[in-house]
């Protein structure tokens, strides 16, 4: 239950606290670190933990945490499939792709599949509109998709 960062993670926090002019600037990098070590999401428990570790009020960290969309407030699957549904990608058919994904894996958008492998989320423009339709799985971009190639990419994930 009790969330703790690894010793490297704690070192990272210490370094980030000194890296910028004020320690508050370290909140975002440290939240990213927590997310990385907590299976891709940030629990409110870990916000409390960070608050103690960084000596910054919980409410301040929580404000930052809930403001930015890259921090997941609920658990996500091993592969967080973020399908761009902004203008250029919509035009290229990403809405159909994400709907097909959800149907195929029998899961609602934003939920984790029963095998814990996937979460499908609609996101806003990821800046790869020349290669629309596109999606991002964890840190990687997958571009110039077709319905078939998109499905193929999911199947290819271990």
């Amino acid at each position, binding site marked *: 239950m009790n969330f703790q960062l690894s010793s490297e993670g704690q070192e990272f926090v210490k370094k980030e606290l000194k890296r910028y002019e004020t320690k508050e*600037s370290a909140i*975002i990098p440290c939240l*990213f670190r927590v997310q990385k070590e907590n299976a891709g999401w940030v629990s409110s428990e870990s916000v409390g933990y960070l608050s103690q570790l960084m000596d910054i009020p919980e409410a301040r960290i929580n404000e930052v945490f809930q403001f930015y969309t890259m921090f997941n407030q609920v658990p996500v699957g091993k592969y967080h499939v973020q399908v761009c549904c902004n*203008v250029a990608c919509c035009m290229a058919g990403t809405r*159909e792709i994400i709907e097909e994904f959800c149907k195929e894996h029998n899961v609602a958008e934003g939920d984790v599949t029963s095998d814990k492998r996937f979460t499908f989320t609609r996101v*806003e423009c990821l800046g790869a509109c020349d290669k629309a339709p596109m999606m991002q799985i964890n840190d990687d971009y997958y571009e110039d998709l077709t319905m078939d190639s998109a499905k193929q990419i999911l199947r290819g994930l271990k």
Partner: protein
Amino acid sequence: MAEVKMLTEHYADDSYCGIEGYQAKKGYEMLKKALKMPPAEIVTMVKDSGLRGRGGAGFPTGMKWSFLPNNGEERYLLCNADEGEPCTFKDRMMMERAPHQLIEGMIISAFAVQSKKSYIYIRGEYQFAVKVLEQAIQEAYKAGYLGQNILGSGFSHDMDIYVGAGAYICGEETGMISSLEGLKGQPKLKPPFPAVKGYLRKPTIVNNVETLASVIYILRDGVEAYRKFGTQKSPGTKLFSVSGDVMKPGNYEVPLGYKLKDLIEIECGGLKLGRQLKAVIPGGTSAPVLTAEEANRATLDYECLADMKSMLGSGSIVVIDDSRCMVDMLGVITHFYHHESCGQCTPCREGTGWLNKVVSAIKAGNGTQKDIDTLCKVADNMKGRTICALSDAAALPVLSFVPKFRSEFEYYIREGKSQVRGISYAQMHH
């Protein structure tokens, strides 16, 4: 005139990404030159070049720099690499293909404004660009272009990267400063402007990636040569990100003043076979949409598009052909601004949600004729009523889509389905 590769000259070369490859193409030569010049002279050159901010607002860069107070306070330079305007992808390419170009431009600019510390604020989604830049900064430190006493000039400068975490509003310069300070990325009240009180209430210059990189070429070619490209009021070249219904979407560097029609037809290979041009969004989704007739007349400079009551913005061009339903397109856009409003100012917080709900109701086939009026009234009252321009950015698409394609909206409301697609989007997307 056609494509002019000034910034993008060596982008096809993979080695340009590393410091050696970059230096092989005369990289960092202009930094050496700059460090021997009086800083004020560089500011004057940038001012005289007429370079305007490439991020979206188009504010004259040299003028921005000259707002810095001479009060002995330390100054910060922030590079705005939070490219969030939908359908813009030029900065990502610049950072991935030519990180040293940005770094060199930043060091020169930092020297010009006498700043000892700079940050590149990059959006968190650009993981690859982050890695490329991190490595490039290390290389620049090793080569002595960053750090103490750069190249024996006595000028010292540190550069760091700050990675955002997913918020469009952080592309607004004061929102970016809030974010960098470890707060929610909410824009700050102006005045004071960042040049006077910015990051940590210290004088701060925030410039876009492309703007900072352009400084190198002003220095290299001189003011006059730089001004040969573009128009009197919009000098230089600019990167345009073209997406949507064209054969060859992508980034194209053309002189400002270039014909939009030519960009679509020549550089981008025209529309898909058998399709007609219906509309163009010329400067990111915030820019009011142009009809095909307007698009055919438009030139890509700040003035022409302002005359057409639109804007050049970040230079992202979405080409829309006759297979597209404008109600649906607007729905995607209102959804975006509803999602991204920071929630500070009431008109934007509530208005973006209101607009999105009305458009969604229309798309679901539940619209009423009154909705068209409501949309325009709400959008009209969101304009110019908030701390930053997001509220305007959310209102302008509504105020252009609805009047310019009114019949399509009326049809949708009356028939409960799209005039173009023949069905209701409620049946297609849940």
